[in-house]
């Protein structure tokens, strides 16, 4: 970043009058937009197509295959179609909140991508409170969803919004506890540091660091499915019960924003699990030193591919789950969170601390 700034300042006279911080900030915004435009938006689109094809495979049918070779441009067609649709705002709706809600959902989800790494160097901002920021900023989504449920002035939307709020707020706790276990292990909240604390090989991953970590991983996985409103926890938009939940009254591009959020979230869930438990972008040191002789671009590309493939495996598991399982009932969902996942989360995060103390007891005694 500094290199780019000094290059720009050196080569463009007009920029020399501006404070360096400002250029730095502007570049951050550009970088953030690039990540959004070049990666997240097409990814959310393509994954919608991939999900439909996988669903079709699971269900023994063909799926979209008309637009482009094997229907690969279906998502573009859908996007264009949605842009051209009439944007309906119900007469009885609170029109300001109704318009605002999709943007909040959108912002909450995409702000989280700021701290999602793609390789050792490709990250918008390696915040020192990265994972904490991620948990915090994704909570904005709840506000957007509740707002949409309320502003629609539709009872089904309201029920959907309420369900969603209860669900997401509840599941933050087991998710946070599982993440806490990882943070204790790595001693850092920065996602890059957490990844660096792991290695390339499975036995160096946090997933297998101690017997409690697989439990933490599964607990985080379930909790993030619930936070992302994915089946079997898609009760806020349960089609057969609440018609379409909070997005019932939405149409056109506003409707797409909700689904955009859902598919972007799919990658976010996978990326967080990959970064925290599956070794992130770590490559074996032999590969790293070989790649460095060929240049930084190759190294980052390889790291990105490692990260991406791991994340994709998670995405496929999530998609397969969605098309296999029925959905749970709202009270069962809460019971799962408060009766099972939260206690398990406490056991996992406190258990390793106690275990750590036990191993270090002798050291402690010697110190005292």
């Amino acid at each position, binding site marked *: 970043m500094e290199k780019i700034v000094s290059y720009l300042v050196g080569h463009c006279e007009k920029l020399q009058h501006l404070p360096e911080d400002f250029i730095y900030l502007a570049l951050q915004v550009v970088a953030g937009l690039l990540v959004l435009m070049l990666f997240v938006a097409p990814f959310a689109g393509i994954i919608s197509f991939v999900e439909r094809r996988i669903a079709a495979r699971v*269900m*023994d049918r063909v799926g979209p295959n008309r637009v482009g070779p094997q229907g690969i441009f279906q998502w573009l067609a859908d996007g264009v179609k949605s842009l051209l649709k009439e944007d309906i705002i119900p007469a009885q709706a609170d029109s300001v909140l109704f318009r605002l809600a999709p943007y909040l959902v959108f912002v909450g989800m995409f702000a989280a991508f700021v701290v999602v790494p793609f390789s050792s160097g490709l990250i918008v901002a390696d915040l020192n409170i990265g994972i904490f920021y991620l948990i915090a900023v994704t909570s904005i989504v709840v506000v957007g969803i509740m707002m949409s449920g309320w502003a629609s002035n539709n009872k089904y939307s309201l029920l959907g919004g309420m369900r969603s709020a209860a669900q997401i707020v509840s599941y933050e706790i087991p998710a946070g506890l599982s993440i806490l276990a990882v943070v204790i292990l790595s001693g850092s909240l920065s996602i890059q540091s957490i990844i660096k604390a792991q290695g390339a090989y499975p036995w160096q991953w946090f997933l297998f660091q101690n017997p409690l970590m697989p439990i933490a991983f599964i607990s985080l996985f379930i909790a993030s499915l619930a936070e992302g409103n994915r089946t079997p926890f898609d009760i806020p938009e349960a089609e057969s019960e609440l018609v379409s939940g909070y997005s019932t009254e939405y149409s056109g591009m506003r409707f797409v924003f909700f689904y955009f959020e859902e598919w972007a979230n799919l990658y976010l869930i996978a990326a967080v699990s990959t970064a925290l438990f599956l070794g992130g972008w770590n490559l074996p040191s032999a590969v790293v030193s070989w790649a460095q002789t060929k240049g930084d671009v190759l190294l980052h590309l390889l790291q990105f591919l490692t990260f991406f493939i791991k994340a994709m495996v998670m995405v496929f598991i999530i998609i397969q789950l969605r098309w*296999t399982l029925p959905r749970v009932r709202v009270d069962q969902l809460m019971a799962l969170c408060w009766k099972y996942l939260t206690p398990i989360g406490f056991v996992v995060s406190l258990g390793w601390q106690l275990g750590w103390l036990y191993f270090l007891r002798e050291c402690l005694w010697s110190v005292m």
Partner: protein
Amino acid sequence: MSENLVEPMQLNIGPAHPATHGALRFHVDLDGETIKKSRTEIGYLHRAFEKHSEISTWSQIIPYTDRLNYCSSLMNNVGYCKAVEELLQIQIPERAIFIRVIVSELARIMDHLICVGTAAVDLGALTNFWYFFNVREQIYDFTEKLCGARLTTNYTRIGGVMRDLSPGFQDGIKKVLKDLDKAIAQVVGLLERNRIFMDRTQGVGTISKEDAIAYGFTGPCLRATGVPHDLRRAQPYYHYDEFDFEIPVGTMGDAYDRLMVRVEEMRQSSKIVEQALSRIPDGPIISSDARIALPPKEKVYGSIEGLMNHFMLLTDGIKPPKGQVYSATEAANGELGFYIISDGGARPYRIHCRPPCFPIASAFDKMVENSMIADAVAILGGLNIVVGELDR
């Protein structure tokens, strides 16, 4: 808790709602997500079937019966024609009987495929629906070959059936039944021991034996409570007493049992179809009685007697003797009864249809009380309320 302080939220479920599968409406009072009181409103699909029958000839009524339970229209055709034949006191040819048994059981399989498939969809498990609908599609192909239509079959005639089994029917159906077994195994594998599915359906919408009988439940919903009542055994018709099949019963009478009883019934129906296919005799497919059945086309165009016969049947119609009859068959949802009064004319004096859904739907309000919206959907899926039959 706070009945006097907070007004319950009024929510309209239906008439256009994804879970009602037709135009059915529940007006529920909600406390949070709990249904405190439900009021079912039926009649959105009322087509005056019974009144319309009174101005139609006996044969013209057959296509109307297609629209009763449109998931298994073949069975309604059989049920109505059987009632009229009892009124006429005639015997139909053996081959026609066997064909009717085969198409009835295929219709039962199709109906159960839809019921279990859509119930699973309502619970959020979309995949099962497609496994079942692939098989249903194959059976529909045979229905199409049999009578030219897939949904509105209009297949039976008073005195027999419209057309003989199509060539290749036997082997084709045997292959379909194998696919059916596979599909059932897949769906049962996905659902039967699935924790989420069990949590969603077990103990949901439970109804006791006594209550079920008091409400007038029949069919799978009654058998799910543990009562082994099946008209095919209780009042055997069409050689059902000679076929080897079991009557699956449930234990709890909840939504889970209702679906599992249906799954098992499909296997039994498949057994009956195989037996009927192996025993089917050759011979005529419709009665030769000139007052009832239309003469073959060669006679109509080749002889004056045939032409006159044809003309008289189409203009004057069948004239059953004065009297009344109640005839019931075991349809996919339960006892499908036709109560017919004839004044000796070409049109019925009165027809009353006893749809199996009607008593079942009347218990819905009680079953969903104090359960959640999601439960209401699960219960509705298991009851298989077909609105065409409910509203007539």
